[in-house]
């Protein structure tokens, strides 16, 4: 048992931190925002050059075979700088699904391109009526002689507008919310019948609603030929959730540091705000929340490859508590900054928005508490 980072991990963490501090400081963000720029192609190439896109991909297909712990280190650095890259959508969700479910040929075709930064993939699974129930898929796929025809609608698809491919879940058989009978399909974003409605995403990036109307796909579009892909969907969702938890830890860390610096220097009644014990104690609670979040995000990563129930419990536990803790830290960071905290002139609000995104993505506090409780009850009954 040794939870200190290896030398390799330490170097990864440090290089990510350096990159973020250099390129994702407040000035750089403001400039990009003013120029109306999203995440740049140049930065994505740099991600590729640094090996980050290859990091969690299998070594057989151009990847580095890193695990959730390494991904977490990267994500934590991203969070510190509020990086709004399509890393989670392409590398964790998209490539993750391909690596978990794809046939050897599909993997050999797609994964190296992703690792090189030549291919972006979005994950189109959630549906509006499903809320956060991963098994609730109404989009359906019908097989005919030429291949597959997909019809349905997806919501909350991250970064779809700049993706080359969509990995789309669709029901091959069974009824809505059945665990069985869901497949994952490789759909070119520009395929006929695919319509995107794309908006700005709360906290940075873009989000799309995807309509699929009689989308025709070849017989080879079904990922791995697998007609029961729910376990894969659950696994990649859990992995992405764990990654977002690590990112949230980075955000919380920055918020605490920024707020501490503010109340130490901002004076009122001739004294720094930090003379107020009520504020100091609030910040103590914020610091405690960061440490607890750090522990649970790491725990979720350490359980990423455990058996599904254990993985899900660790991930839901982390998501629930970090969801609450990050909200507390971000809201209090706004509060302790006073009037300045609610303006666009500081970045506190941008962090708060990303925290709200984090809380909503893959289900909020109560959803994950319930999932955790259900898994616990099942564990006790077993």
């Amino acid at each position, binding site marked *: 048992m040794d939870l200190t980072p290896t030398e390799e991990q330490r170097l990864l963490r440090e290089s990510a931190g350096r990159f973020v501090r250099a390129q994702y400081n407040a000035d750089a963000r403001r400039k990009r925002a003013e120029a109306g720029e999203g995440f740049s192609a140049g930065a994505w190439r740099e991600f590729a050059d640094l090996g980050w896109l290859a990091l969690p991909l299998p070594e057989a297909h151009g990847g580095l075979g890193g695990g959730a712990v390494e991904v977490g280190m990267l994500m934590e650095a991203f969070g510190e700088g509020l990086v709004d890259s399509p890393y989670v959508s392409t590398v964790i969700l998209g490539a993750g699904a391909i690596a978990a479910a794809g046939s050897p040929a599909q993997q050999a075709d797609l994964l190296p391109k992703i690792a090189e930064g030549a291919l972006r993939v979005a994950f189109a699974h*959630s549906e*509006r*009526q*499903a*809320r*956060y*129930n991963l098994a609730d898929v109404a989009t359906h796929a019908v097989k005919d002689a030429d291949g597959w025809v997909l019809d349905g609608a997806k*919501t*909350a698809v991250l970064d779809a507008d700049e993706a080359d491919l969509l990995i789309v879940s669709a029901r091959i058989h069974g009824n809505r919310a059945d665990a069985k009978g869901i497949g994952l399909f490789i759909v070119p974003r520009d395929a006929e019948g695919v319509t995107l*409605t794309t*908006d*700005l*995403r*709360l*906290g940075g990036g873009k*989000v799309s*609603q995807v309509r699929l109307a009689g989308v025709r796909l070849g017989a080879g579009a079904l990922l791995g030929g697998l007609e029961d892909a729910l376990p894969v969907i659950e696994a990649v969702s859990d992995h992405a959730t764990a990654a977002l938890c690590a990112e949230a830890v980075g955000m919380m860390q920055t918020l605490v540091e920024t707020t501490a610096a503010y109340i130490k220097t*901002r004076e*009122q*009644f001739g004294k720094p705000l930090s003379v*107020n014990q*009520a*504020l100091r104690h609030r910040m103590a609670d914020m610091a405690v929340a960061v440490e607890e979040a750090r522990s649970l995000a790491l725990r979720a990563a350490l359980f990423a490859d455990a058996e599904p129930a254990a993985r899900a419990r660790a991930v839901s536990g982390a998501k629930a508590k970090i969801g609450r803790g990050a*909200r507390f830290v971000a*809201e209090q960071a*706004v*509060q302790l900054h*006073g*009037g300045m*905290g*609610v*303006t*666009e*002139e500081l970045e*506190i*609000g*941008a962090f*708060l*928005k990303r925290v*709200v*995104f984090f*809380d*909503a*993505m893959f289900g*909020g506090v*109560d959803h994950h508490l*319930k999932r955790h409780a259900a898994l616990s009850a099942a564990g006790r009954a077993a």
Partner: protein
Amino acid sequence: MNFSFSDEEKAFREEVREFLASVLTPDMKRAQGMTPSVFSDKEISDPWHRALASKGWAAPGWPPEAGGPTWTPAQRWIFATECAKAGAPSVSPMGVAMVGPVIIRFGTPEQKAKYLPRILNGEDYWCQGYSEPGSGSDLASLKTRAVRDGDHYVINGTKIWTTHAHHANMMFALVRTDDTGRKQEGISFILIDMTSPGITIRPILTIGGDHEVNQVFFDDVRVPVENRIGEEGLGWTYGKYLLEFERGGGIAAARLRRGLQHVIELANGEAPGQPIDDPALAMKISEIEIDIDALELTELRIMSALQTGQNPGAVSSLLKLRNSEIKQAVTRLAVDVLGYDALVWEPTRPLYGLNRATLPEIELPVVPEYLNSRAFTIFGGSSEVQRDIIAKLMVGL
């Protein structure tokens, strides 16, 4: 003790309801419902103000000689509650509720004659010049200088968090006319024509995407001495008198209840999935409803005390604190109900100006309102300041 309204009070309530039914247009209600801020845009509040003014109801707190309707505290409570229930816009408070009472109390006959009618009928739109970039909760540390030059003051400095300065043609401000004594001394209360040369307004966008507040710069702005309220150097006294009105909060439960109703409607229909069927959500809705019940009954206890000529004590901090906390709880819950729809960020303002959007109309203001409401516990006396006051005045510490 009597928990029912009297026949007279019921008749008044009926009158208010009839007035609201006749005056509030669907467009006004829609625009108000899609406004994330507690302040209605001028283009919403103006017609509403005019309708109230023609009914004689624009200034509930004013004495009859100034044009107030001579309502009892119960009538004021009924009026505010019915307006909230009906989804009426807010009247901009800076004129009627803030500078108006100061002019009534401390103004000269000339000032009263000049300003009060224009406040009453909504001709002037006021903004408040109190806070400065360096002052925060320490308001008295303000630095904007007014130097006497003949029968004018020449003003230099800057004010911040100025709500609707970009709509206003008048500002009431606290300025420093002397800096030799205690910082509370040497402050004067003056009325500034916003069209005066030397005034610049810089918009401040808030995290909800709204342009609501501004920074206002004064560069050798000349203001006639007759625009000073009361004595030079006593502005702090007048300003504090006004803050009592601002912090009072007063009658907030009905608006909170409408906000919670909005959450229930969202959860019952538009939001992704069927969140209303979630027992944990139902318990949270109940929790907030009970908080509102407590606040409402506290308001009614205070109203009863006022009604019978008693002093309700140091409760305005309590009302402000709870109103702002409950508001934040309501808006937070609404965001939770949105599920994945919370991810869609619509930057266009005003929201009621949009013809189409990805989200259903009822969902559009949810996230902006959550973000906007973060300011509730900061402005008008932060929650930390309110707790300091409660500890002092209610607990005696």
